[in-house]
């Protein structure tokens, strides 16, 4: 549905986006993740035709944004970082203006009514936008993107500056929209992505550093599995046994939690699951395993690891130069 190939945007010497490439399949909700200033907005602005790339192509539903900008833009509903609202208009005037601007062919009253119901702005329909709270303004911004029922929706940091309840509301809304639309959601808030998105693309310093399904994202980081075990048995012997299991790269005692068991921290090779062999080895020795905890990396760790890795790579590159 969305295909970005080798997008590069250069401002003088500085790269805002460097060879950014990814695709989003139809019906997918894609999380576009990166720290502030990583190049998220730049990429999205290029995708929506607001900016032009220095090189590379962006296609929406097979239409190149440069070759047929009007055709491509007709397929996109875009909520920029700052909602493009005319503050002195009422919500009604504004939505009608956008309806005309996008040359929407759907039944006007029915369509606008439906959108207002979905984003819950019916009760402010007649009010001047200037007087609305940030949450409502954001909703009006989303409403604007929905007009014309475009197959692709792009939200650039839609929950910034909202209170926790509003954030949850907007998230739920986006998740619902994701059922019928292809969605790109840009954010620097990790739980948001975890909660909504099927797939995650991580960008840092203008470069894509990961592009994975949400559940696979942790694998994008090479690393070790870390686990803690509670085992009843002689401490040193257990430690020796742990170290002898194939795949274990590191083991240490982290203390006695209760009288007769000891806690061990074990790191293993990522590709090898040591839990089963460990269980049988302990059973053979009749040392009961009474607790096991896999310290999975959450998105937060993954993100930091990715960004960190990338930063180091950047430094190395810099050194070479």
């Amino acid at each position, binding site marked *: 549905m969305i295909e970005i190939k080798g997008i590069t945007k250069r*401002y003088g010497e500085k790269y805002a986006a460097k060879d950014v490439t990814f695709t989003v399949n139809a019906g997918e909700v894609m999380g576009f993740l990166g720290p502030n200033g990583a190049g998220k907005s730049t990429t999205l602005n290029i995708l*929506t*035709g*607001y*900016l*032009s790339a220095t090189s590379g192509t962006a296609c929406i539903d097979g239409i190149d944004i440069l070759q047929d*900008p*009007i*055709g491509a*833009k*007709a397929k*996109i509903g*875009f909520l*920029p970082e*700052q909602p*493009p*609202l*005319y*503050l*002195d*208009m009422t919500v009604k*005037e504004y939505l009608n*203006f*956008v309806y*005309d*601007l*996008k*040359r929407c062919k759907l039944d006007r009253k029915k369509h606008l009514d439906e959108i207002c119901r979905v984003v819950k702005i019916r009760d402010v329909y007649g009010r001047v936008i200037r007087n609305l709270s940030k949450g409502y303004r954001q909703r009006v911004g989303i409403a*604007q993107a929905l007009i014309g029922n475009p197959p692709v929706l792009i939200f650039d940091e839609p929950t910034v500056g909202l209170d926790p309840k509003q954030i949850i509301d907007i998230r739920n809304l986006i998740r619902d929209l994701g059922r019928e639309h292809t969605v790109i959601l840009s954010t620097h808030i990790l739980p948001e992505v975890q909660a909504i998105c099927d797939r995650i693309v991580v960008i840092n310093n203008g470069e894509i550093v990961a592009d994975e399904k949400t559940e696979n994202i942790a694998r994008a980081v090479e690393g070790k599995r870390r686990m803690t075990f509670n085992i009843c048995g002689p401490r040193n012997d257990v430690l020796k046994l742990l170290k002898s299991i194939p795949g274990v790269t590191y083991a240490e005692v982290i203390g006695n939690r209760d009288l007769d068991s000891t806690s061990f921290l074990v790191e293993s090779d990522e590709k090898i699951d040591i839990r089963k062999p460990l269980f049988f080895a302990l059973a053979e020795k009749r040392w009961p395993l009474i607790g096991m905890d896999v310290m999975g990396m959450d998105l937060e760790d993954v993100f930091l690891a990715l960004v960190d890795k990338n930063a180091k790579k950047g430094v190395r590159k810099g050194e070479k130069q």
Partner: protein
Amino acid sequence: MLAVYKKELRSYFIGPIGYIYMALYLLVSSLIFTYTTLYAGTCDVTTYYTFILYLFAILIPLLTMRMLSEEKKSRTEQILLTSPVSLTSVIFAKFLAAFTLFAGTLLISCLHFIILFAYGTPSTAIMISTTLGILLIGAAFVAIGIFVSACTENQLVAALVTIVAIASTLVLNVLSGYVSFTPLRVVMRWLSVFDRFYAFTYGYFDFVALLYYVSVTVVFLFLTVRVFEKRRWE
């Protein structure tokens, strides 16, 4: 295009600017009219329109100063530039909206002329051709104003620069009298708005002048589009 046109026209009257423009124009033009025709005891509107041209320097920026600077500042340009419409049609719609208010007010002020017809024998041909000339010049000034507005985020800067730009085209023919270097003088006369305007005041329709004013309008609207294009690419 119609959507942007309607929006711009409406926005003049949501805020005070549309009313201020119309009130000021009608008030000042009435005063000028009274002094240049009624008190002078003449049916000739050339002097009247000469003064009106100077009035444009101050009033036309009111119509154009916000037009693009405000969109840029509030980032609302993003919806215009990411909607399935061409940039040219957006700019043209904005121009048309400003020109509509300008021309509408000008035509209302033409009601003054009823007095001339009631108490004198003015030449209808001259009156029509002069008004037409004024409309064309106004279109060029509006286009200049829109271009300036596209170059800044600050309304005030847009207004001041537009005033200076329009005023300088108006005083060029006066200044050219002091220039002894012939090529420069020729260029100044060529750029001068007044020189071509006088043909209209003799009651004949100068096709070259028409072409000149339309070209100026088109060139500045084109430059406005380029300003946006350039920002996209830089």
